[in-house]
């Protein structure tokens, strides 16, 4: 037996009772005394056990509550780590992770877009108006994007749409619908001005990196800007 036992008192009472029980020639008084001693220990044990269980159940309930809160906070933190707070779109780091994960086992089409002359919006209408344009732009992209498309904000006015397993022509057609959706009607601003964006599209085989996919789409985007903006290039 260990040097210190959690049940030292109980074990000792049990030994004494066992010893007495093994003897069959004691007088009634001795057996009665032994039983009495055992009752004292047993009563104490029951009382203590009751207390311990109530106490540990309460602590367990508190831990469960804390654990649920922790899980919720971890989920919120995880969301914040992956999303742009303004638009709710994926942030740059999340876009890179998602793209690389998709490229590990499949092809991918990537749309990169940039708001045309965004600096002008900020300069003429102020940054809150600029923010409103960004929010509305992402909302417009969402109305056109298929369900599995992952929309991200990778820079101030630069966005991506990750399209796992989509063919190049399908992605180009989607980018064209997005461009039209942005340019079609004025944005909800005091001045009610028209906003346009330029689009670059790339298609990347499985096993490539984010850098490959992004580099070619960005090059196409640059070409769209060069051709006069409000255009889709692939």
């Amino acid at each position, binding site marked *: 037996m260990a040097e210190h*036992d*959690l049940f*030292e008192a109980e074990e000792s009472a049990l030994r004494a009772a066992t010893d007495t029980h093994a003897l069959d020639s004691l007088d009634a008084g001795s057996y009665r005394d032994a039983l009495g001693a055992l009752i004292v220990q047993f009563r104490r044990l029951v009382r203590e056990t009751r*207390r311990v269980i109530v106490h540990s159940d309460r602590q367990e309930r508190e831990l469960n509550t804390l654990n649920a809160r922790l899980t919720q906070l971890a989920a919120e933190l995880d969301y914040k780590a992956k999303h742009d707070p303004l638009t709710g779109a994926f942030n740059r780091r999340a876009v890179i992770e998602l793209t690389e994960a998709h490229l590990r086992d499949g092809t991918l089409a990537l749309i990169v877009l940039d708001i045309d002359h965004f600096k002008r919006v900020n300069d003429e209408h102020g940054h809150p108006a600029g923010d409103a344009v960004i929010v509305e732009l992402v909302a417009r992209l969402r109305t056109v994007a298929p369900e599995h498309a992952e929309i991200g904000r990778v820079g101030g006015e630069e966005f991506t749409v990750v399209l796992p397993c989509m063919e190049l022509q399908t992605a180009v057609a989607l980018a064209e619908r997005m461009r039209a959706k942005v340019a079609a009607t004025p944005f909800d601003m005091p001045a009610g001005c028209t906003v346009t964006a330029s689009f670059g599209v790339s298609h990347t085989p499985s096993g490539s990196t984010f850098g490959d996919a992004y580099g070619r789409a960005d090059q196409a985007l640059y070409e769209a800007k060069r051709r006069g903006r409000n255009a889709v290039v692939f």
Partner: protein
Amino acid sequence: MENLYLAATADSPEVDFRFDTHELALKGESYPENAAAFYGSIIHQLRDYLAGCGDGTTITVDVALIYFNSSSTKMLFAFFDALNSAATRGVRVVLNWHHDPEDDTIGDFGSELHDDFTALEFRDLPTVS
């Protein structure tokens, strides 16, 4: 006899038993790997000390535990039982039960101790930390 001091660790409370001034304190969290060993030797020294305390002695015990696991609870019962026995034979034992007023679990555990160890002079001390 010599005083007993054990600094708090991540899983065991601070033990500050000043036998010379009859002030005993337990403070912190208690979930040691082996509660029987941790409290076994403390209780052993406590019993030796209590055996030397006479009728006129007043012992002040300050307990401020914020968390204790089941095996610690079992050993704490033995700890309070030793104090209660001394109190039954005439030593005055004041138990100051410190706890966060928001922590009902510890507060209620204190009142259960009050019910179970009737010879101790129990003082419930909810203190804002």
